């Protein structure tokens, strides 16, 4: 009842950080079970799994590049703040019809190695190509 006496029952702060992701458009990369492209464009895939010699499940990102290129993969939280850079280096072209091996794992931690929870958006950028995938970490 006290809430009804006041205008606006939202508990959001006016000058607080807003929630950017996932937003109205949920993005998602397809699973890495099968290569479906022709090999002449950039392709990305990702899936949760246990990599060889790993002790915990990670979110594993792989991609195929038709040419040598610089690749940047980073994790942002729901407020669009950078959480962790997963990959930032030059990468040779992948074999046609195959994804890069091994994939790039994200162990659900931030740059300091602390576990994180909530909604996140991963960005992949290579030259003019850019793609993203939303991930919820329970």
């Amino acid at each position, binding site marked *: 009842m006290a809430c009804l006496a006041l205008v*606006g029952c939202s508990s959001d702060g006016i*000058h607080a*950080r807003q929630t950017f992701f996932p937003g109205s458009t949920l993005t998602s990369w397809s699973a890495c079970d099968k290569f479906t492209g022709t090999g002449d464009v950039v392709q990305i895939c990702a899936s949760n799994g246990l990599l060889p010699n790993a002790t915990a499940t990670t979110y594993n990102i792989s991609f195929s590049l038709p040419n040598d290129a610089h690749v940047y993969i980073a994790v942002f939280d729901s407020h669009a*703040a950078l959480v962790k850079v997963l990959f930032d280096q030059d990468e040779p072209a992948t074999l046609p019809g195959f994804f890069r091996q091994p994939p790039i794992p994200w162990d659900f931690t931030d740059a300091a190695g602390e576990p994180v929870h909530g909604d996140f958006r991963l960005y992949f950028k290579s030259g003019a190509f850019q793609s993203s995938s939303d991930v919820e970490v329970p």
Partner: protein
Amino acid sequence: MRASLLLAACLATGSFVVSCPERARAQEGAAPSDSAAIAKAMQASDQAVASALGKSHFNDPDRFELGAAMPEDYFDWLGTFGYRRRVLSDARFEHYLHTEATFGHKDYLTEGSISAVWYFRPKALWHPEWRIRPVFEGGIGGHIVVQFADLVGLGDWSSHAEAFLKSHIQAGLETDLSDRLGVGVRGRFTFPAHHPLDYAQVVLFLR
């Protein structure tokens, strides 16, 4: 009536033993042209007084405000620019429309907002004659806030906007630096909100 009796006594006795009111004597004894001059002078005097009061804090119909605010949440500082206008005055309250634009930036995040708040100021708590005046008012306001996030490493931006309808209580102090310039400090409390203190603000206002 009493002045007329005194004047009649003065005229009847022809003396100034009785203390006669100066203005009554002047009016009674003046020629028509003098009366017009006196009336004109009095009108000019009234206008001068009204004009003097109109430029002071006794009559503060509108003002511009340039300020800085310290919000409770992510941002350290906000720059503020506001315009406030008294729109109504009834027996118990003065009503003000306060519009404000804010700008903030920290790290990767940039914010801009515009607000319009209708404030009710209880007259019982408002003392315009005081040199340092406490200000206490409540109101209802609409806010539109737009934020731009720099997606670090991508050379790209993401933006998001939200609209808020909120209740506010504002309390503070203000004083005049001159007839037209003043300074104020105040805190704005917002309901409902995660953080009870929306921001603390210092403003320089120009009438």
